[in-house]
């Protein structure tokens, strides 16, 4: 059984009288432990696809199977549970809670998972230590550099030991050097057997992955392993 199976996924947006077809029938499978890059020009539907994969959004039609479960049949709260346990999401704009410290940001998924106070503190500190931020626990996002913020986001995404790590242009807001640090982090995770799906439009970022899926106009244009 594949970890992810998409079958003829469509997603369109109603914009007044117009309908925007962001995805027009995407079918693909991704196995456990894969490191996949999704590429494509701006507006081709990459983010829409990622949001669907991350259960943040539901398709207009088509089937999405995650771990053998039909995501389309789940209600809001079941989806929240999936997002909490199965999926770690890293965004281009970090999406950290501005008023909370790094530690609290990383603790949050654990709170929603019902982990007790002491245990979650321990786990969150360990996760931040893993991304090299052991000395930044009490810093708020605006007291950290972009690279540090993105590492907090990665720690938060990983803290519940999800099945998949999704990253939508994770280096898009970072300079080359800090971007490289994040990619190195991803490489380590992939080497440990984690499943990673990373959206990017930079070839050198994509080349870190084992497989590149190219999207164009809401369709999969090509799907090839990296040579």
């Amino acid at each position: 059984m594949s970890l992810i199976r998409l079958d003829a996924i469509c997603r369109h947006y109603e914009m007044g009288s117009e309908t925007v077809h962001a995805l027009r029938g995407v079918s693909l499978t991704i196995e456990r432990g894969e490191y996949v890059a999704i590429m494509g020009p701006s507006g081709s539907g990459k983010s829409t696809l990622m949001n669907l994969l991350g259960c943040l959004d539901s398709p207009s039609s088509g089937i999405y199977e995650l771990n053998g479960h039909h995501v389309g049949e789940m209600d809001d709260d079941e989806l929240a549970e999936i997002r909490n346990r199965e999926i770690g999401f890293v965004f281009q704009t970090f999406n950290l809670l501005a008023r909370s410290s790094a530690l609290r940001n990383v603790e949050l998924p654990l709170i929603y998972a019902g982990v007790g106070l002491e245990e979650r503190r321990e786990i969150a500190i360990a996760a931040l230590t893993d991304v090299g931020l052991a000395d930044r626990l009490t810093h708020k996002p605006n007291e950290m550099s972009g690279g540090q913020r993105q590492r907090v986001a990665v720690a938060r995404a990983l803290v519940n030991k999800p099945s998949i790590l999704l990253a939508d242009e994770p280096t898009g807001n970072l300079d080359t050097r800090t971007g490289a640090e994040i990619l190195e982090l991803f490489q380590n995770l992939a080497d440990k057997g984690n499943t990673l799906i990373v959206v990017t439009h930079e070839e050198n970022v994509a080349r870190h992955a084992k497989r590149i899926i190219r999207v164009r106009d809401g369709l999969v244009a090509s799907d090839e392993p990296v040579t």
Partner: protein
Amino acid sequence: MKLLAEITEGTRISFEAIRGNLLRSVLTTIGIVIGIVTVTLMATAMEGLNGAFRDAISFIGTDVLYVDQREWFIDSSTKWDAIGKRSKITLPQVRAVERAMSMAKGVAPSVMHQIDSVRFKNRSSGMVMLIGTNDQFLVTGGVTLSSGRFLTKSEANANRDLCVVGSEVAEKLFVNESPLGQKIHAGNESLEVIGVLEKRGSVLGQMSLDNQMIIPIGKMFRGFRWDPSCTIQVKVGDPAHIEAAREELRGLLRKIRKVPPGQGDDFAINQQEQLLAQFKKVSTVIATSGFFITGLSLFVGGIGIMNIMFVSVAERTHEIGIRKAIGAKRRTILLQFLIEAASICLLGGTIALGIAAGVVAVARHFLPVMKVALSPSVVLLALAVALVTGVISGFLPAWRAARMSPVDALRNE
């Protein structure tokens, strides 16, 4: 466990949010504050009034019937004319009642008369309420003696020159000497003090019950009031039989006063219950208008809270998106905003209680009879009202927040 953690987290977030917008939060609570101050003060005032009133009427026994020419409370103006024509209640009528009444523990006539002063040697007492009655007053009037004795039946009937004085009268006239056996002067009469009444306090802090002087009723007729109408005080003894006793008394009086069948009574039987009923009427009016003001200000306040919560939800849409993206359920978000609304209202409730406590302290200073105090039950009531208002007015905004789609919320920055 999970719910508890979510409540803790929700409380924490709310406090941060309220602290971050303290001025705005406080201003929002004004409507709530007014509402809670009203409800608190009203409940406190009602408690105080009730207590004061009960104290005040305690000198009217619950099981004593008072026969008078007219009712204590007359509701229609037409009645006034009829009442004016009623014949006086005379002493022989009182005696007839006393002889025939089977369900009474005591029957006493009473006639009151206020005089300017009672004198002893060169001392004067100031205003005194004279009560002309007989030995039975000891039963019907609910008085007790601190020293000496009361009038006996024969002394009362023989119109002896004797009196029993209230504690205040005794204090004013006698310094370092026993009142008993002394002759005091009232009007043209000279009366020997045979007893002093126990201290009883005052009615609503105004009319002292210790400023009285009890004399044989015949003396009252001869020396102070020409041909007055008597009040007949009938002590029933058992409050359970008060209705039956009332009926017996009524039948008896109609016979004694020769009221033809089919004609209404030409007398009135009053009792404490009537005072209570009248008081309840008044307090219901106060309560109704108070609750109306409370309801109105809570409604307006609630709308204000709802409004500010919509603003709060709108401001934190992105945050809601983040929380949902990492696993917050609808319930989690709903709770978070409900707690915030409730906390704002509780803040208002606390401010209101502070204001109310101040007002109560001032009121107690100027109106000591009211014996008002913020009781724990009123404080609880106020906080509960605040909490409920918060939850109700926060619900719609919180529900909207809880139902947001994560992607849409995240896009909002």
